[in-house]
Structure formats: C-alpha cells, structure tokens
C-alpha cells in the first residue's frame, strides 16, 4: 500500500491577471489563488491510487503566508493530511530555493514510496521541481508521466514525451512528475469539502529545516516582467449573413498577399 506525498504550489489564477496598457505591467489585484493546474493532476493521481489500493496521501506545499488559503482546498481533493511552509521567502523563491525547501521538509517527514509533482506550475512553469527533488534526495526520477500503476514496491509509469512514449519501471521510493492528460481532477463534493475541515494541517517552520542561508538565496531572479502584447488588426466580421462575412474575409486575405 503506497505512501504518497504530493507537492503542490498555490499560484495566482492567470485568467484574472490583466495587462495594464500604459506600461504593460501586470495587474494581479483581481487574481485569486488556485492550486496550480498540473499539481491538481498529481493530487488526483495519488488519491486515485490510494482509493484503489489503500495507503495514504499527504500533501506538502511551500508558499508565502497566503498559502494557508490552499489548505482546505487541497484536503477536499483527497489527501488525508497537509504539511505547509508559509514563509515570505517564497515570494522570491526560484526553483532552486523551492526544491531545497521541499527536499529538506521531505527529509524531515520521513520516507514516502511516491513523491508526486505536477509537470510545471501554472505561473512560472519551470518544470524543474521533480528532477531537482530527486537529485537532492538521491532518488530516481520519472518525469512527464501520463499513466501510472504501482504493484508491490514497483512503479510502472508511461511517459509522454511529445512525439513518443516509453514505459519506465522503477522500485520506489521515486519522484514523479505528471502531465495534465493523466487524469481529470475531481471537483470536490460538498461532503469532501466538509470532510476537509476535520483533516490535520501541520505547519513546518522554515527555520526548523536546518537550511543554510545560501540554500534560500535564489539563483534566478526575475528582473523585468511585462505583459506580452502583439498588435493585431482585430478586423472582425459579425453580420448575420455568413456569406457576406466570408466575402469580406476573402477580400481581406487578398490584400494580405497570401500565396
């Protein structure tokens, strides 16, 4: 019966981020938090596994103090317990710092058969956490998983690599990253949401992880972030008469000199 740990990130929902036209800076004031998209797939996959085979799923997150908002959400999605590190160092953390913090926390928590991450986060999409964690913990890593099964202590994972697939077989403990296509994350039921209130939430203080100051010093620092804007003509035909619209579009395409 596998003991699973899912690492997740609480990110801003990019749908609610607006680009300010005057300076192309990002307006995040209306953006709500969410559990990063592919991390939900990781949570769902571990939960499905444990629902079928028994075992346990814990969740682990590192974020700013705002990460507290995620705890009930994550627990309503299946995990039986969540460990959280809420520290404002996370605001500037790059994948190096994040992996250092998560790896130190995992070493403190003990052994898990499977450590699962999403392929990449919805905000910075660095796609680094799983291989970095594996490197730091001295564990094998199977990344970009689209199908997963566990039998005894053996993990069989089909990897999706764009133009090909392959099957990786490995004895746990192992670190995995999952693709969005691995499953469809559940929408928690009312019962699951209410049940989340009763599940344990445990804070881990970053100071208790024994990390040297250098391990919390980001190596990649965002210097200049601006909205990506491309100028388009935005000539939209919306008459009721489809044939008229098509004729205008054809005339438009003719002026573009498409061969």
């Amino acid at each position, binding site marked *: 019966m596998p003991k699973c740990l899912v690492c997740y990130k609480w990110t801003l929902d990019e749908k609610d*981020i607006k680009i300010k036209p005057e300076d192309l800076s990002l307006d995040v004031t209306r953006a709500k938090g969410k559990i990063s998209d592919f991390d939900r797939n990781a949570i769902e996959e571990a939960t499905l596994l444990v629902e079928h085979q028994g075992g346990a799923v814990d969740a682990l997150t590192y974020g700013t103090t705002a990460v507290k908002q995620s705890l009930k959400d994550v627990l309503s999605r299946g995990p039986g317990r969540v460990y959280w590190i809420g520290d404002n160092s996370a605001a500037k953390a790059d994948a190096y710092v994040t992996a250092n913090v998560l790896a130190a926390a995992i070493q403190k928590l003990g052994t898990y058969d499977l450590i699962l991450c999403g392929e990449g986060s919805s905000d910075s999409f*660095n796609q680094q956490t799983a291989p970095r964690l594996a490197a730091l913990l001295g564990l094998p890593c199977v990344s970009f998983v689209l199908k997963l099964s566990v039998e005894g202590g053996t993990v069989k994972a089909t990897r999706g690599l764009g133009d090909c697939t392959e099957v990786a077989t490995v004895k746990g403990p192992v670190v995995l990253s999952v693709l969005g296509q691995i499953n469809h994350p559940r929408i928690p039921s009312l019962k699951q949401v209410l049940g989340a209130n009763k599940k344990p939430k445990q804070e881990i203080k970053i100071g208790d992880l024994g990390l040297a100051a250098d391990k919390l010093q980001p*190596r990649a620092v965002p210097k200049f972030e601006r909205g*990506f804007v491309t100028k388009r003509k935005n000539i939209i035909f919306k008459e009721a008469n489809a044939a008229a619209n098509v004729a205008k579009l*054809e005339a438009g395409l003719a002026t573009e000199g498409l061969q």
Partner: protein
Amino acid sequence: MPGIFVFSEDAALAKQLLTPALELKQALSQPVTALALSETDAKDLAALGAEKVITLQSATAWPEGLSEAISRLLSSAGASVFLAGGTLRGKHIAAHVAAKLNAGMSTDAKSVRIEGGKLLATRLHYAGLALCDEELSLPAVVTIPPRTFAPPQAAAHAGTVETAKVETDGRVAISDFSQAAGSGVDIGAARKLVSVGRGFRKREDLKLAEDLAAVLKAEISCSRPVAEDEHWLPIDHYVGISGHTVKPDLYLAVGISGQVQHVVGARESKLIVAVNNDEHAPIFESADYGIVGDLYEVLPLLTAAVRKNGGR
C-alpha cells in the same frame, strides 16, 4: 578552466544550441564544449564551432539516465553555463544538473545574454501572458526550445573530438518505446495551418476543416483538448504552451476559444484568422481577421470562396 557546455539528445537541436553558445563565448571569453551521443553528431558539432566535443559512451540509450554523469562532468570542468535542448528529456536532465551544481535554471529561454557577469534569459510566465527577463548568477543552466535559433555557419577550424565512458542510472528500466502515432506532418514547419478546436461537435466534422485546408494548401493543427481529450488528431498536432509553437504565414483558428495557453503557441504567426460563434471569445483579440458565426455554415462558404479564387 570554466566553460560553456551544450547538450541535446536531439542532433538538430544540439547544432542550434551552438549559436547562443558562441554568442556567450564572445561575452565570457570561455570555450564552448558540446556533449554528443554519437561520433557522427560529435563531428558535426566540432565542425560548427565547438572547440571540443565529448562523445558520451554509455550502456544505455536513455538520455535521462545520463543526468548524473553530465552533472559530474560539468562540475569537475567548472562549467559556467550549461545550455540544454528544451525537449522534455532535455529539461529533465538540465534540472538534475542545475540541482547538482546549486545553480539557477531558466526553462525555455527565447534569448540569452551576459550582463554584468550574470546571464539574462528571456522567457514566458503565466502560460505566455507575460515575458520575463530572469537574471541568473553563474553557473547557470538554460534550456532552449527547438527552432529558437538557426545553427551556426561552419567554423574556420573544426574542434577536437574525444570520448568519455560514462555511468548511467541503473535504477530506472525503460521499455515499450513507441513513436507516437503521428502523421509524419511537421506542424511546426507548415506555412499555413487550419487549426481546429472544441467548436467541432464530432470527429467526422473535421472534414469541413480538411476541405478548407486542401484548397488553402494548409496543414491541420488543433487545440490541446482535441488531441489530448478527444483524440481526434495525433498528439503531435496540437498548438499551445505544452505543444507546438508555430509561426506560419496563416493561422486559421476554427472553433478555438483562444485561452492564453493556446494562443501562446500561435501568436508569432504572420496572420491570424479566427472563426468562432462566440463574439466574446478571446481568440478575436489575437486575430487579424475574424468571422463571428457558426463554423458549420462559415467553413463550406469559405472553402468555396477560396476555391473560386483559385486557392490562396
């Protein structure tokens, strides 16, 4: 002696990596070393300006299994920059190397340069909503997506080639390798694309798009759900943040709402045309021309109009 290292298991991409590597060489005054998986690739890279190419000889054909060996090689060589090909395999390897070198890493950089002794990489944030310049202290690891750079011209003097026997990760066994059922069509190289989305009600209806593509001499691409959820088209046909980034002369999006995750893959197209029944679909913000209407009505008319005008 510190140096700039490049690696991709994709031979074409490895050559492309030499272009930014040679630019960094100018700025850092450090030699470029390429890592290769075969003698043939090694010779090609040496001819294109790598001072030294090391052919990695190992017991496995699984590139990810070389992650630790590459980390050690770079660590003992005192690498200052590692440019890795931005395939999924390459990103896996690069992240492992970055962890072992205590280094920062920029994923999918569109450009790299040196400023004030640090490496600046430009990349996307929030699924393409924003661009960000990331400043990395050295040593730095960067992955670069395919076709970001053209390969360099042949160098005046070919570099040296040597081989190194390296250990592989024996903990992971790889089997059942399968090339995804692709059509052999390279969406990334197409000059025109008719791209289909969830606005189509069933697979058979894609015929409407195929008819239009035929008269336009275009290829068919799609949004992520059409490939991944519906399996109407092979997985190598989808355009978007985790799929293809395309730059055709014409990108005609049909029944695609245009979430940023999709648009990011198409917005470098010269001309974007959208057909959608929802006037408020975000795709129209990214389009040069658009028709608000039912694709089942619009596509046959458009196909007929293009055919009448002798194709376009």
